[in-house]
């Protein structure tokens, strides 16, 4: 191998699980370290934005951005990374689809601030303060990132080369993807087509799900804790809304294998335009009733249909966010 690859990783609006998932590749991380110089990775190596700014354009071979874009800082760094990297990979559900932070798109900025900084039981009255982008504190000019009206997925703000889905991406997939990229960059293999979803299957989770499937006719929906489930049988058939049917496989069926329904973190299938809408369509289709009132009753057991169907992908949905006229 000639010279080492130059790589970077950044943590935007996210929980940090994605960084952990890279570490979860265990000793493979050492191979990475051997093959590449990690030029920038705030959680693991020391560094400042200025280091990044100092780099030449395209100096980095590949950068991994995990997390959504919630504020001006996220966007700033996303753009920096794009500028400095040959390949930019949206790492994990948040970068890919907006992820859990994306659910904030069901509320406006004001609603969020109100809940977080003004009307919240944990706030001592009199201490209500709302963060401002610019403020002065005894003479000092303070600047903090601007909180956007809504959450964006990475490719809303910058051009993305590859998407590595998952919350977080399965270590095996991470490993595989890194190998592919290394091979591509070192010219040993052909790179996947731009914009490809890597580290995931083209088919739904059910393809890999070991549970048996027979007849899908549901007369009542349950949340996982409401029912003693048959570990062998399809969760959906037992009335537990499992998003496996509308979600790319590749995760290794992590949730259903641990008796939890799939939440859909790997995102919609290639032929599906709107993951949530499809989930609604499929869920409705298996309800077993002809009586409108009974139907209403059955779906009443699903408390938050938007949260359920767009848990990881609201900003990537057709409507993207709640409309506040």
């Amino acid at each position, binding site marked *: 191998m000639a010279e080492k690859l130059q790589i970077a990783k950044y943590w935007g609006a996210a929980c940090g699980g994605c960084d952990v998932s890279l570490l979860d590749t265990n000793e493979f991380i050492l191979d990475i370290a051997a093959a590449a110089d990690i030029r920038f990775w705030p959680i693991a190596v020391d560094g400042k934005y200025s280091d990044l700014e100092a780099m030449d354009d395209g100096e980095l071979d590949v950068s991994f951005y995990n997390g959504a874009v919630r504020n001006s800082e996220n966007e700033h760094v996303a753009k920096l990374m794009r500028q400095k990297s040959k390949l930019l990979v949206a790492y994990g559900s948040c970068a890919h689809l907006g992820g859990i932070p994306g659910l904030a798109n069901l509320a406006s900025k004001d609603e969020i601030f109100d809940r977080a900084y003004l009307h919240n039981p944990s706030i001592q009255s009199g201490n209500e303060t709302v963060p401002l982008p610019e403020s002065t504190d005894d003479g000092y000019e303070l600047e903090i990132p601007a909180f956007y009206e809504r959450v964006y997925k990475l490719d809303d703000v910058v051009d993305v080369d590859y998407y590595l889905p998952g919350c977080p991406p399965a270590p095996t997939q991470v490993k595989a993807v890194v190998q592919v990229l290394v091979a591509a960059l070192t010219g040993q293999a052909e790179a996947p087509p731009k914009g490809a979803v890597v580290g995931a299957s083209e088919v739904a989770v059910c393809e890999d799900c070991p549970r048996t499937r027979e007849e899908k006719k549901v007369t009542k929906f349950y949340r996982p804790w409401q029912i003693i489930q048959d570990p062998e049988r399809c969760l959906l058939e037992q009335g537990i809304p499992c998003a496996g049917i509308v979600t790319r496989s590749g995760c290794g069926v992590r949730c259903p294998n641990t008796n939890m329904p799939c939440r859909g973190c790997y995102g919609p299938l290639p032929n599906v335009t709107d993951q949530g809408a499809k989930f609604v369509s499929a869920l*409705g289709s298996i*309800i077993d009733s*002809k009586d409108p009132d009974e139907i209403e009753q059955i779906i009443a057991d699903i408390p938050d249909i938007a949260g359920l169907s767009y848990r990881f992908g609201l900003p990537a949905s057709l409507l*993207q966010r709640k409309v506040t006229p």
Partner: protein
Amino acid sequence: MTFEPKIVGFLCNWCSYTGADLAGTSRIQYAPNVRVIRVMCSARVDPTFVIRALEEGADGVLICGCHPGDCHYSEGNYKLMRRYPLLKKLLEEYGIENDRVRLEWVSASEGQRFADIVNDMTERVRELGPSTIRPALQADAAGR
């Protein structure tokens, strides 16, 4: 000048679309705001269609199928009947007014009913005013 809503109508081929044709052959006059898209059965109406229409700038979406029990495909309309309330709940969480999306049963012989529904829906949507979805999304994009 008054706001003229753009409403997308999804009509099943056998009952509602035929009913709409009957309104035509009977020369029943109604509001020109609904633009009809023909589907074989109301069961073909994927919630994605409705959401796509709203995203594309429709001020309202009207879905019409055969009366329950009278479906050309015997039970297609029940399938829609099951998806629809879920879709409505979803749209509600998106903050979309109830009257913008509507499901009605119109048989092949109910030309007048179709006309009445179109007129009524047009009025309700006109009262709601233009949908803000498309402008909002465009603004978001511009904001970036």
